[in-house]
């Protein structure tokens, strides 16, 4: 059955385009999606996810069930970077520890939508408020990472004097992806049915096609980074594969304790398992320039992302399926 699920997952055009992108680099075809086209796709996806989530939320309303899920999301977004920090610190210097912990404590929107397409192909539903959960889960890891850095770094003054917490908070919450998700969610929610009708043709009907286009590029980017995986070392490669599974498991346990629906539990697990390669890296480059981006970006992009969308999704689903039946 696990194999069936894997096939079910892989035989989706978006996933196949991801693989095509990766192979393209191995065959050195020179295929490129030049900037800023990838930016166009990622802006599109964020708006689309947001509006759709907001619309669904406007239909379901904000119930206590919804609040439970959001609370759980916040809990995960706080705990994951903390325990990741201590695991990573065993082997790495403080700067890289912080950057990688923040990367894995945050989420990847593309992994989320790929999981959504996978669920849909199985005919299972999940709540529109999961998008709100995702939005909530993006930023905390950045702030926690920087708190950790301040607590545990030997030399507090690393060149730039005092840490400007207000500024850091602003940057964590108002970074482009979080902001765009947030406003789209809000606009989707507030304009409800009427807004949806106007936005649906662009932001929903075309969604899977755009996702396929984007994943083609993600495949190319991921494969280009694969050369750096050697430099990453076995410990971090292992971290990049096992940590997502651990986070997913942890999240599934919590989800079953709090009585989430099957679809919601799966999506929450995927969020916990995913690692950020847009928002967090940008924040880390700014605030922790001492950390090596070839480590945290390579791990998120070339190890965890491909793992999650190919093996991870069917794996997490199997586990969820065992519990929810």
């Amino acid at each position, binding site marked *: 059955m696990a194999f069936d699920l894997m096939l079910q997952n892989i035989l989706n055009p978006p996933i196949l385009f991801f693989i095509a992108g990766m192979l393209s680099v191995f065959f050195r075809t020179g295929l*490129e999606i030049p*900037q800023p086209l*990838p*930016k166009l796709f*990622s802006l599109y996806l964020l708006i689309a996810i947001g509006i759709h989530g907001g619309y669904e939320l406007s239909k379901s309303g904000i119930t206590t069930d919804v609040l439970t899920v959001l609370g759980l999301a916040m809990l995960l977004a706080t705990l994951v970077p903390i325990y990741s920090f201590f695991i990573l610190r065993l082997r790495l210097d403080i700067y890289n520890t912080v950057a990688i912990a923040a990367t894995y404590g945050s989420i990847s929107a593309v992994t989320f939508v790929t999981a959504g397409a996978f669920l849909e192909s199985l005919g299972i539903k999940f709540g529109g408020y999961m998008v709100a959960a995702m939005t909530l889960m993006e930023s905390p890891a950045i702030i926690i990472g920087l708190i950790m850095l301040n607590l545990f770094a030997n030399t507090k003054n*690393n*060149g*730039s004097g005092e840490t400007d917490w207000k500024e850091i908070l602003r940057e964590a919450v108002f970074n482009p992806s979080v902001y765009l998700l947030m406003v789209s969610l809000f606009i989707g929610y507030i304009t409800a049915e009427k807004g949806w009708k106007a936005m649906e043709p662009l932001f929903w009907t075309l969604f899977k096609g755009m996702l396929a286009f984007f994943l083609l590029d993600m495949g190319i*980017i991921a494969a*280009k980074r694969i050369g750096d995986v050697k430099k990453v070392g076995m410990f971090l490669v292992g971290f990049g594969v096992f940590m997502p599974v651990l986070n997913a498991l942890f999240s599934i346990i919590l989800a079953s304790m709090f009585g989430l629906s099957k679809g919601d539990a799966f999506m929450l697990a995927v969020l916990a398992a995913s690692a950020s*390669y*847009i928002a967090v*890296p*940008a924040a880390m*480059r*700014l605030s922790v*320039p*001492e950390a090596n*981006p*070839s480590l945290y*970006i390579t791990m998120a*992009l070339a190890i965890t992302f491909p793992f999650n969308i190919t093996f991870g999704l069917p794996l997490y689903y199997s586990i969820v399926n065992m519990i929810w039946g």
Partner: protein
Amino acid sequence: MVEKKKIEVVISSFHLDNVLKIFDKHGIDGYTVIKDVLGKGERGLMSADELTDAFKNSYVFTVCDEEVAMKVVTDLKPVLKRYGGICIISDVMWVLR
């Protein structure tokens, strides 16, 4: 035409602002920036093809008097040390308009 110094800096796009602030501090009110520059250096390959902009450089140059240039250089050093990048200075003749 008058003799001037040309300061050229290549730095990660994230930290370009630090350079511009130093220019500003020393009263430099003219400069030119080229965004989306690639490169290789101690910090590895900056291929500018990510979604994050994390591997993207910017190139900036300014033409100014020698004494100003020296002050800018002094302030630039710690920035280059922390964030990476290079700075070079050369002689140019500035065409008065």
